[in-house]
């Protein structure tokens, strides 16, 4: 296994308990690994949470991290994937002055070409939403920043894997 760093998406299926976020993030902190993004949501299984964590590290270390995450009592299972193993995206929102929408024709073209969506418009501002890959969001950000952005926010990565992650079976096995 070589020592080159790579971007990995880590999926962690857990019980929905207070304190688990602390426990999981502490594992990264101990090894001085910067978490690029983290998203926690419900999963396809009722009562089971899903962490999606984006990190840059070596495969050797990501394996060790997975072992230490899985060791936590309330973690059901953890997986790591390369970008090629997953379908992934991020979401972002832009808050922009409404005047610009009418005065700067170019903005309307940018919106159309980037597949962004207008969430709301009022007298002062409008809100634009875009989901996609990081570089698409970054490009949109670059294009809009020329006109001035009142607020910008981007979510962590969310990802589903191409291959199956056998969680339901694992939980079923416990019940039997």
């Amino acid at each position, binding site marked *: 296994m070589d020592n080159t760093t790579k971007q990995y998406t880590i999926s962690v299926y*857990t*019980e929905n308990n*207070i*304190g688990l976020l*602390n*426990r999981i993030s*502490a594992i990264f902190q*101990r090894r001085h690994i910067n978490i690029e993004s983290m998203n926690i949501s419900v999963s396809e299984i009722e009562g089971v949470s899903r962490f999606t964590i984006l990190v840059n590290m070596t495969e050797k270390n990501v*394996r*060790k991290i997975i*072992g*230490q995450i*899985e*060791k936590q*009592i*309330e*973690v*059901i299972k953890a997986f790591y994937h390369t970008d090629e193993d997953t379908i992934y995206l991020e979401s972002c929102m832009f808050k922009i002055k409404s005047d610009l929408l009418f005065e700067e024709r170019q903005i309307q073209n940018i919106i159309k070409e980037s597949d962004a969506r207008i969430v709301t418009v009022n007298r002062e501002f409008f809100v634009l939403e875009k989901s996609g890959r990081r570089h698409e969001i970054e490009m949109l950000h670059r294009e809009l920043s020329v006109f001035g952005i009142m607020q910008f926010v981007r979510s962590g990565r969310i990802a589903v894997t191409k291959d199956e992650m056998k969680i339901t079976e694992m*939980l079923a096995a*416990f*019940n039997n």
Partner: protein
Amino acid sequence: MDVKTKSKKTYLNQPSEKITGCEALVRCLIAEGVDIIYGYPGGAIMPVYDELYKYQEEILHVLTRHEQGATHAAQGYARISGRVGVAMATSGPGATNLVTGIADAQIDSTPMVCITGQVPSHLLGSDAFQETDIVGISTPVTKWNHQITRAEEIPEVIAKAFYIARSGRPGPVLIDITKDAQFDTFDFTYKQCEGVRSYKPVPKFDTNALTEAAKAINNAKNPMIVWGQGVILGEAEEEFKNFVEKSGVPAAWTIMGVSAIPTAHPLNVGMVGMHGNYAPNKLTNECDVLIAIGMRFDDRVTGKLSDYATQAKVIHFEIDPAEIDKNVKADIAVLGDVKETLAEILPMIEKKSYDNWHQKFKDLLKIEFNKVIKDDLHPTKEGLTMGEVLKEINTQSGGEAAIVSDVGQHQMIACRYAEFTQSRGNITSGGLGTMGFALPAAIGAKMATPEREVVAVIGDGGYQMTIQELGTIFQTKAAVKIVVLNNDFLGMVRQWQQLFFDKRYASTEMTNPDFVTIAKGYHIQAKRVTKREELADAVAEMMASKQAYFLEVCVEKEDNVFPMIPSGASVSDIRLE
């Protein structure tokens, strides 16, 4: 000290009954078979203490003199008995004082449940008096922790706590209970926990891995075993002995693993690691198959990783999947409980002996004996050595005593030279290196197994970190034998300063009090030995005592512990002087 413990069945699986949270907690502990709690009362845990007063016929509470002492006593109790140790403290400083012992139990895989009181739930997060986020603080050093804010959670959470602490690779669990949850009433009934769906304590072993491991072992020319505490924790002493004897493989131990088989066993080739024996360290880098059993390749064991057993095929028997490939890459990983895997592999192992290979160990031992051991155990110089004190304890205890050591030079000497005939004989702070561990741990060990001789061997530095526990010994009458090896230095740090910092003894010299007077102040029999000719009689007097006994032995001030693998060096570069 004697508690007339009712059968734990008393509170198990009974019809429900309306009681308070704190009473429920005490009943849960009794139902889990807890006979002794080590702790310290305070505001937020007072309702529980009130119940302990009521239940004192069924469960004993031992008041230590500091909460850290409570955790170490619970650890000593757990390490010698294999049962879950229990420590209790109030919120705030009471809880934070537990942290050192919890971290120690985590790194040394000791089953322990800590119960802390917490401010009432409506005050949580408000910086209330003696409020501290002990769940947040203890998260990185616990196997599991949880805060209870409602009385009705108590039975299930306590059941889960004990299940998690003792199952699989054991470890510490902390349960924090708000004061209102202690006071509230609910319908109590208790069932033991039988499983947690997200937690698999013992991974299923893979028959293919076993077959492959057996093949590698049978084909080996110069194999070597390094075993750790996993053998003891898995209660696999018998299976391990059978495996060693049938395979004929020289077996070395980590300090956490010693005593799993008697130290006098002919296949025992000694201790690995920084101050371990010359032969097993050197030959780690010459063996062709390294069989690691229930150990985790700590850096104090491996030295420089990139030069550790690189020539060897590594077989790793391990219960914790996170340990596989963590430090040393395993060519064959045998996951599972060693009690099972060693029993399974035994029929596949060919009976062998490795006479020439064993001879190499013997030859290197001879070198170590002449350069180090002879002067440690049979000194001709005037000053007393730590080694000769250990030798005297061995002689007089016949290896029956459990030796509880602290951290530093005396610990390494104790681990190197103590002789054991019984398992769970060596109780020491291995992974965390917690000075102050030994005195309270010895109390816990003695109380858990009153029939066993327990000798605490402590340095003058570590002794003073928890010296207040002499009060606990006085109050409980725990018949602990305490040997302080006094060199008026923080000896191990001084040794490093001598070897690596040009003898600049920064803050390592200690001006010590009169330890004998202090012990006598606690009404503990005490004696000081300064001359070789007094040693045997003093140890005899100590061993003969039916009560606690304190023996200070003034040893040579600037002796060093050898062999030594300097920090960051390879096991091959072990130094004899």
